[in-house]
């Protein structure tokens, strides 16, 4: 079955989604980060029609959409059903991961709940960059499970070299640390593709990207 290219994906304005999905996705809404700062959520999403479409949808040569949307029963109920919606920054994240995969030379596996998850996902606390589709939890590289300080640290070093500017969650057992995956994080990235629908220009909104 031929894979679908990223430029074939339908972009939707989160403001125009039906209310249950809108409430769960919180397009353009705000979350509080751990330091008390406001972080604004993305408004534009790629629509994923079905699991089959997610399997076929290529985002980078070695990463397809399904890997970024594999959540579990802890996701908000309206978002457990297709069509699903993923912030448009997912394509940039996939490109960064492709670069990381080249650096490690092995398949890189994103865990369930470790790609995009919504602000209403039960595991979401504060302004998790997973809600921007700009962070991933990698649980396995090649045949190695990242479940030890040594392994996580080794691949974290590779990521620091390969991905300047990426933030990597420190290894440890306490809150805010990771001890069974490598958390790669590209920050609060909001992507607005050229084809994204938008509001007519209003000078009063100048300076406010949303």
């Amino acid at each position, binding site marked *: 079955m031929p894979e679908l290219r990223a430029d074939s994906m339908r972009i939707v304005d989160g403001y125009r989604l039906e209310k249950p999905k809108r409430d769960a996705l919180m397009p353009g809404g705000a979350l509080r980060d751990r330091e008390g700062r406001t972080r604004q959520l993305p408004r534009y999403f790629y629509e994923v029609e079905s699991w089959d479409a997610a399997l076929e949808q290529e985002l980078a040569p070695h990463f397809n959409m399904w890997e970024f949307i*594999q*959540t*579990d*029963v*802890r996701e908000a109920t309206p978002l457990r059903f297709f069509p699903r919606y993923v912030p448009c920054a997912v394509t940039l994240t996939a490109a960064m991961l492709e670069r990381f995969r080249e650096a490690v030379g092995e398949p890189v*596996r994103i*865990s*369930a*709940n*470790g790609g995009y998850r919504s602000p209403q996902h039960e595991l979401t606390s504060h302004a998790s960059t997973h809600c921007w589709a700009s962070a991933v939890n990698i*649980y*396995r590289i090649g045949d190695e*499970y990242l*479940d030890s300080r040594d392994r996580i640290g080794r691949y974290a070093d590779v990521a620091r070299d390969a991905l300047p500017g990426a933030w990597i969650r420190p290894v440890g*057992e306490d809150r805010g640390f990771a*001890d*069974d995956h490598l958390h790669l994080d590209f920050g609060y990235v909001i992507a607005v593709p050229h084809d994204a629908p938008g509001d007519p220009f209003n000078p009063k909104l100048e300076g406010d990207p949303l």
Partner: protein
Amino acid sequence: MTFPSALDRDRAPSLPQNLDALRQRIDAAARKSDARAIAVALHDAESGAELHYDADRWFHGASTIKIAILLAVYGEIDRGRLAPQSRLHVRNRFLSAYDGSPFRILADRDADSDVHASIGKTMRVSELALHMIAMSSNLATNLLLDLIGLETVQRTIERFGLTGLDIRRGVEDEKAFEHDIVNRVTANGLVGLLRLIAEERAYSPELSREMLDILHQQEFKKGIPARLPRDVRVAHKTGDISSVAHDAGVVYAPGRKPYVVAILTEWAADAGSRSPTIASISHAVYDYLRGTGQEGSDA
């Protein structure tokens, strides 16, 4: 898959009520074994006979507590919070009931490796429930307990008025164990729990039958079923750690209503004959209820 009809609690007793002979056979099995303690509880739907042999003594619950977790998981299904096909992230990281510190299930100490092979991916709640019971997967157990919460299990036990079940943590929580936070059961407690399911009083007949279906798929058969005739079917759950060996189940013999039995045993760490002792007592119970056990040869 279908099962025999539910236990009939209203049926008048019709079989021997003098349980002394059975008690004597259990006494004999206990003397023959090196067990430190043995407890047996029995409820027979056919005759109404009940046996309580040290049946309120508390034991470390080992894996028999997984029946209570199964009941609570199905309670969440009944409430609509979960569906059997709901997917759950398989992650090997849990927090100790003692101090919240993280711990993992060691794959080489788990009876079931299949769930470990899915780490990082998702499995269905129904699959995890099956692995928890039939293969006694500790990882599946802690995943389900982590999902629904310990309080949900405790509330479920209270809701049904069950006694003899004290669930305080997940499995393989060594730090909690070292600080005497242990899961405990009595033989009467396990029989009460299994009667609830077998009599189809757990939420609905359909959900009760689904739980029984899972219990029927038990893969460890050296206890209750080991010495029973091949046409006898047993829906059961074993529990086995260094200090205890248990089996509790619903026994369906052809031509009669089922009976529920729990056989709990406690041992020195290096003691042998654990499963054979349980199998011997199970055989004695079966013989007795069939009316053929007065001269049993196995005790």
